[in-house]
């Protein structure tokens, strides 16, 4: 095999810790032809709003965008399951020529009557603006007619990056915030932002806060409900997970309602504990909250520690590669993996900013590869060079790891197990353990160094 070439235009987005002065180029539009692992604006919006289970999610455009996003995420709902259906205006050639507004209106009319959602999100896809549809006008008309919020989401795929999609989703969400009454909202209360309840994670987290004595007014958007979002402005604090997605909303709520926010991560024992302590610290007048928090952390950690230690025995010294959407998650993962005795040899993200990358490189050992917006060739090149035993990423990264005989842990929205929270840490450890200790690797030619036929 000829060695894998790196595009010249991508060189500034790839660094090896310790080699050169660190200065990551990032936040760029992906290079044409580079097979980025990123998605589009629409994807960003869809990820954020998807878990709102009592809303109608109508995708305005040709069928593909709706078809590919039908029920592909592990975001659970304790009640309605409307979010798991796929609705599309399914634009055809004549709609492209004559415009899709009528079809959109008819679709909303019909679907709202039938499913009786609490709100409707209308996602614009690439060609909607180009064919000249006035989606906002249709939404207003239907909103007036049906008496529920009908919110356009400006998610045309090409108009920016996935982050712009987050922003568009937050814009839509923000229109729901403040629609409800804050009666019954305690002064000791929070919103959980940026937690999507994959595998029931939001339920875990929420329970911790509630056991602390802190009311959770809304989760955005895991197991989300339109009414909860409506009264979320009543909460005393926004607790924002992840680097990108919901920060926009937190900022808007801060400006409009004065709600302060803090950033947290629920991944790994340390960060999970910190997320609870940081919230407790915001309510210094109620010292019993901090008391309870300490107790919770102690209990929860004690419950998982014995098995974690067992697992650590098998994982000690193994090498891991991380490629995730947001850099913030990568921070936590590095800590979690270190906790399991593993060494991170590659870390990258789709959407990190300069500061994120600086933090990343500070967390890593010399020689670790750090990447922004990587593609399959780059990822495979470095996981092989670094002889990783485990790759943490999403569906698109999985076959790369597998072809080279490397274990894999899905840390994306498609997974079905909780990886957040204390119990999530145990699930994470088990997941990593299950993959890394499988006997199948013994047969993999790349790991055998050509010793096998």
């Amino acid at each position, binding site marked *: *095999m*000829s060695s*894998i*070439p790196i595009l010249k235009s991508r060189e500034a987005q790839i660094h090896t810790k310790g080699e050169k002065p660190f200065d990551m180029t990032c936040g760029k*539009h992906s*290079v*044409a*032809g*580079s097979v980025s692992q990123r*998605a*589009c*604006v629409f994807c960003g919006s869809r990820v954020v709003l998807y878990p709102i289970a009592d809303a109608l999610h109508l995708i305005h*455009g*040709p*069928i*593909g965008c709706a*078809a*590919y996003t*039908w*029920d*592909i995420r592990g975001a659970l709902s304790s009640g309605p*399951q409307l979010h798991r*259906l*796929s*609705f*599309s205006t*399914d634009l*055809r*050639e004549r*709609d*492209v020529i004559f415009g899709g507004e009528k*079809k959109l209106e*008819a*679709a909303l009319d*019909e*679907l709202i*009557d*039938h*499913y009786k959602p609490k709100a409707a999100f209308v996602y614009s*896809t*690439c*060609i909607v603006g180009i*064919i000249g549809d006035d989606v906002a006008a249709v939404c207003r008309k239907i909103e007036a007619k049906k008496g529920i919020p009908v919110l356009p989401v400006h998610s045309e*795929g*090409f*108009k*920016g990056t996935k982050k712009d999609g987050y922003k568009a989703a937050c814009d839509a969400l923000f229109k729901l915030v403040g629609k409800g009454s804050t009666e019954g909202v305690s002064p000791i209360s929070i919103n959980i932002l940026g937690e999507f309840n994959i595998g029931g994670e939001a339920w875990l987290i929420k329970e911790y806060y509630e056991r602390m004595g802190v009311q959770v007014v809304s989760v955005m958007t895991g197991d989300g409900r339109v009414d909860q979002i409506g009264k979320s402005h009543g909460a005393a604090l926004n607790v924002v997970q992840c680097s990108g997605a919901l920060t926009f909303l937190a900022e808007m709520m801060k400006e409009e309602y004065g709600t302060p926010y803090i950033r947290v991560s629920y991944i790994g024992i340390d960060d999970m504990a910190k997320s609870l302590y940081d919230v407790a610290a915001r309510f210094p007048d109620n010292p019993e909250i901090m008391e309870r928090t300490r107790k919770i952390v102690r209990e929860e950690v004690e419950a998982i520690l014995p098995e974690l230690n067992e697992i650590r025995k098998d994982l000690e010294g193994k090498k891991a590669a991380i490629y995730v959407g947001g850099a913030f998650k990568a921070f936590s993962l590095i800590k979690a993996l270190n906790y399991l005795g593993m060494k991170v040899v590659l870390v990258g993200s789709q959407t990190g900013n300069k500061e994120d990358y600086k933090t990343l490189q500070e967390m890593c050992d010399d020689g670790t590869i750090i990447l922004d917006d990587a593609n*399959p*060739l780059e990822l495979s090149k470095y996981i*092989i060079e670094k002889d990783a035993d485990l790759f943490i990423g999403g569906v*698109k990264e*999985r*076959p790369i790891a597998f*072809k*080279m*005989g490397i274990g894999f842990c899905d840390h994306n929205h498609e997974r079905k197990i909780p990886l957040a929270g204390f119990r999530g840490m145990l699930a994470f450890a088990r997941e990593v353990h299950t993959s890394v200790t499988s006997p199948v690797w013994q047969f*993999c*030619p*790349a790991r055998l160094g*050509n010793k096998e036929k």
Partner: protein
Amino acid sequence: MKFAGKTDNYAATQNACNLCSPLGAALVFKGVSNCVPLLHGSQGCSTYIRRYMISHFKEPMDIACSNFGEHTAIFGGGANIKLAIDNIRSQYSPELIGIATTCLSETIGDDVPMFIRSYKEECEDKENLPALVHVSTPSYQGTHMQGFHGAVRALVETLAEAAETGDKPLLNLFPGMVSPSDLRLLKEIAADFGMEPVLIPDYSDTLNGPLWTEYQRIPEGGTTIEAIKSTGGAAASLECGMILAGEPETAGTWLDKKFSVPAHRIGLPIGIRETDKMMDILAEVSGNPIPDKYLGQRGRLLDAMVDGHKHLNGVKAALFGEEDLVAGLAAFCSEIGVIPALCATGGGAGRFEKTIKSVVPERIHRKMEIMEDVDFVTIEKALEKTGVDLLIGHSKGYAMSRRLKTPLLRVGFPVHDRVNGSRTLHLGYRGAQQLFDRIVNKIIEIKQDRSDVGYTYM
């Protein structure tokens, strides 16, 4: 949950039973040796399609994208396509780049053929220029199947030449959108008849390959460009699929018109009759008798069909998926006594009902519901009334299967909730044998498990 059904003023598509055309085109290009597919549109198109196909094939799925930004949409995608080609070339060194458009590039009116011409003209390194094949796949036209067959045709029309035949007679094989195992089977059959098959596409190795010793930028395998070029000199073409491969203008008809390569057209060879037809054509074209191996397979298949016939005669099944697959399955069901009580497709080529009826005995027609251009909500509504014993189709029917408490037998694409989508065999006597065993065993399983008695023999 109750669904809104398809009504007269129906407007929304709910849980689509089809995908968009660029997916089909990308799949075809994955079946060409040393080829990188390039979608001309937004980043999301390629990412979603890659993700969707990875979940089925469980293989690396590099599909490039020309990555439209806001400026591109305004000023056109010419610059992007050129940059994309450059970047693909420097990363992958492909022999062919298969360029499929998307709704976006089509809507803004990009003239891709012109972009390609000008790229070629401007190119400094003409020697090493990969072949550039373009297919128009606006996502608002047709389904992934139109994209699939369009790309096949584009490959042939762009590359085929009047060629000399080699030692063995060449057979052009246009298999339709079948599984890697199906493709491998078709190649084996053609070779056993002493012919050199040119499969377009052939993703049997590229999307169902071994583990790697070293990373492969483009997975090994696929139909070579040389082979595609040689199609003009083949002894015959065999096109599979009554509905889409049966359109008036296809790769096969084009080769017939242009190079006088006789085009034989059959349905997907699923079940006895259509496989018999294929065998007869291959015997005729090759001049060789049907190899004993296949007579043996056929004989054992018939024996098995008789052994299991009582479990199946009168069983009602719902078939759904792409048009040609459903037609092939309906034909096979009719051979084994299973009533294809509902045949549904998201496709809308317009020949579905007629084709289905042509492969099912007339006395069954009144027991059938045939639905074209429908989504899963509409199918489920119909099934709530009809009631069938078994669903046969792809993984997207699982939610429906669960609600209806009717088991789903997974065939076709996508299979997202089982591991062997690539290995599922549909074609030939062996494919029929596997389908038969799966169907009858599933019916037995239902009967056995639902029985209060729990018989240990059936």
